[in-house]
C-alpha cells in the first residue's frame, strides 16, 4: 500500500497540506486493523479503538470511514450507500472523500464493489466472499437505552447477562401484542454476544446470518469496532411463541415491480397520494434496465 502523499489542497500564502493514502497515517491504520482483527476473532464483541477526529462530523459515519480507510487498498472498488441509495448527499460526500484521498475506483453496482460502506441498509443483492460490508454505527451498545452506563453494560456483556433485553422485548409484547422494535433490532452473534446491527430495518437482519461477506461495524464517536466474520450464525432475539418476523409490504415496488425487498414511501402530492419504491437504488435501476416495469414506472427503452 502506498504511503505517498497523494492529495493536497492549494493554499495562498500558506504551505500546502498533503494527506496520506485514505487520509489516515499508516500507524493509525495499523491500530485500526488490529482492532478489526480482534473484532473478527471475537464475533459481536465491541472492541475499543482510538478513533481519530475525521474531517466529517461525528455521527455522520466517522467510524465507518475509519474502518473503510483501514481496509481499503488501491485496487479496491468502493460503493457507498445511505438509506440504500448511492445518491443521498452523505453517501456522495463519503464516496467523494475516498475518491479524493485514496483515488480508488468507485461504483454504484453492488456486485462490482469489493468494499461497501453503508448506513441503515444491507443491499438487496446477495453479497459474496470477496466483499466487505462496512456499517456506520451511531450507538454500538445494544443495551444503551436500557442502561446508560458503559461501566454497567460492559459487565452485562462479560456475564452474558441479557435479561434486560429480553424483559424489554417481553414488555413490548405485553403492551402491544408484539415486539415494537422495527430497526436496530438486537441480534445474538455466534451464540454469545448480543449485538446492535446498527439502525438497519429489521427487514435486513436475516441477511446478516451466514453471510459469505465479512461484516465490519465502526462507531467513531463511541470508539468501538465490532465484526461478524463470514458464515457466522446471527440470530435475531425472539421468543418461541413470538418468533422474529420481518416487515411485509402490501404492494411491489412502483418502479420495478420487485417484491420481497425493502420499500421507501414517497409522498406524491398533498392529497394522500403515495407510492412505494425500492430503497436500494442500484437494485431498482438494475431491474428496470432488465425490463421490469412497476405500476408507475416506464419501460426502460422509453425512458431515454
Amino acid at each position, binding site marked *: 500500500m502506498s504511503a505517498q502523499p497523494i492529495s493536497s489542497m492549494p493554499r495562498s500564502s500558506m504551505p500546502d497540506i498533503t494527506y496520506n493514502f485514505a487520509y489516515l497515517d499508516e500507524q*493509525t491504520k495499523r491500530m485500526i486493523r488490529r482492532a478489526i482483527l480482534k473484532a473478527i476473532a471475537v464475533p459481536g464483541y465491541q472492541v475499543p479503538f482510538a478513533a*481519530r*477526529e475525521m474531517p466529517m462530523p461525528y455521527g455522520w459515519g466517522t467510524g465507518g470511514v475509519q474502518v473503510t480507510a483501514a481496509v481499503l487498498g488501491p485496487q479496491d472498488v468502493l460503493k457507498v450507500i*445511505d438509506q440504500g441509495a448511492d*445518491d443521498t448527499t452523505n453517501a*456522495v*460526500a463519503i464516496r467523494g472523500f475516498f475518491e479524493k484521498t485514496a483515488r480508488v475506483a468507485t461504483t454504484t453496482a453492488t456486485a462490482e464493489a469489493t468494499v461497501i460502506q453503508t448506513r441503515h441498509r444491507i443491499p438487496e443483492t446477495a453479497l459474496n466472499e470477496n466483499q466487505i460490508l462496512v456499517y456506520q454505527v451511531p450507538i454500538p451498545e445494544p443495551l444503551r437505552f436500557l442502561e446508560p452506563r458503559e461501566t454497567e453494560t460492559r459487565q452485562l456483556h462479560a456475564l452474558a447477562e441479557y435479561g434486560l433485553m429480553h424483559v424489554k422485548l417481553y414488555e413490548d409484547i405485553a403492551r402491544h401484542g408484539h415486539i415494537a422494535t422495527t430497526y436496530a433490532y438486537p441480534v445474538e452473534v455466534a451464540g454469545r454476544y448480543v449485538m446492535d446491527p446498527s439502525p438497519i430495518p429489521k427487514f435486513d437482519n436475516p441477511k446478516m446470518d451466514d453471510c459469505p461477506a465479512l461484516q465490519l461495524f465502526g462507531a467513531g*464517536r463511541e470508539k*468501538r469496532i465490532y465484526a461478524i466474520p463470514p458464515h457466522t450464525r446471527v440470530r435475531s432475539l425472539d421468543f418461541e411463541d413470538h418468533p422474529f418476523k420481518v416487515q411485509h409490504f402490501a404492494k411491489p415496488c412502483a418502479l420495478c415491480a420487485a417484491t420481497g425487498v*425493502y420499500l421507501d414511501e414517497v409522498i406524491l402530492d398533498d392529497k394522500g397520494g403515495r407510492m412505494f419504491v425500492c430503497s436500494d437504488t442500484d437494485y431498482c435501476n438494475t431491474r428496470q434496465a432488465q425490463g421490469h416495469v412497476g405500476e408507475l414506472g416506464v419501460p426502460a427503452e422509453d425512458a431515454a
Partner: protein
Amino acid sequence: MYVAAKGGEKAIRNAHALLGKRRRGDAGLPSITLDQIAQQLTLAVDRVMAEGSLYDVELASLAVKQARGDLIEAIFLIRAFRTTLPRFGNSRPLDTGDMLVRRRASATYKDLPGGQLLGPTFDYTHRLLDTSLGGEGGEHAVETGSDAPLAMPRVTDLLGQEGLIEAAPEDDGSEPFDITRAPVSFPVDRATRLQTLARGDEGYLLALGYSTQRGYARSHPFVGEIRFGDVEVVLDVPELGFEVSLGTVQVTECQMVNQFKGSAEVPPQFTRGYGLVFGQCERKAMSMALVERALRWQELGEEPGSPAQDEEFVLSHCDNVQATGFVEHLKLPHYVDFQAELDLVRRMRAEQAAQMKEAAE
C-alpha cells in the same frame, strides 16, 4: 410517471460554492486577514486552540475565518487537521511556576510574593458599548512599569509549605494516558480526566461549574490563583542527550482551593481543583477547576449524587465536536427507519381500531 430526486453531487457542489460566497460577504469590502483575526479576535483564536487541542495561532485564525466565526466549527476543522499530524515526542511537563506572567490574581490573599497583576482583563470594565470602536480608531497608549519581573511562586505552593493544602501528586514517572491515542474506559485516572476537561466545551463546563456553586456538589471554592502568561515548552531529545526549547505557549492556569473536613487518616486541609487551558481562557480554566474538584468526590469520601460529580456523564458529553456531530446528524436522512416506524404505528392503530370496534359490538 415518477422520477426520484437525484443529483446529490451537483447539489453539494453548488451548496459549497454558495457557502464560499456567503463567507466572503460583500466583495467590495477587503477580505479579513489571518493577522487581523489573530491580533483582534485573540480570544476566539485562543478558544479554538484550546478546544481544538492544537497550539497554532495561524491555523486557528484560518479556521475561524473558514468557519465564518462559528467557533465549534473552527474547533472541528483544527481537530480534523490534528489527526493527520505525526507525533514525534512528548514535551517535559510545563512549569507554570516559571511562567512569564501577564496576569495574575489571587482571591485568597490581599498581597503575596510577586503581587497581584491585573493585566489585560474585562474585569472591572463597565460593560458599555464603546462606539469609538465602531470606526478605525481604538488605539490605546499603555504605560509600562519599569519594575523587573518578579518571581511569582504559586499560591498553592505557599499554602503547601504549612501543610494546609493537600500536596500536589508526585510525578511517578509513568507515561500518562493519552485520550487522543487510546480509547477511554471508565473509571478514569486524573490525567485522563484533566485532558478530557481541557478540551471540553467551555459553555458546558461553565454550566456544570456553576451548578456546583448553587448546591449541586458544593465545594466551597476560592480562587487560590489564576494566572495567564507564557510558558516555555521543552523537549527531551534522547539522541542529543539534552533538552531543547521549542518556544513558548500561552496558557491560563487556575488553582481552585476548596474546603475539606478531613477524614480518619487525613487532618482537615484544603484540597485543589485544577484548570489549565491554552491561551487566555479564564472562564474555561475556572470552570474546569470547579468540575475537576467535584469529580474527586469518591477519593475525598464526599456524598455523590450531583450532575457535576458523575464522571461518566460529565466526561462522555463534554466534547463539543462529538456533541455537535451527533446532534446535527439528525439532519441526515432517516427515512428507512422512519418507514419501519410508520409501518408499525399504522399496524398498531389498525389493531386498536379493530379492538375498539369489537368492544363496541
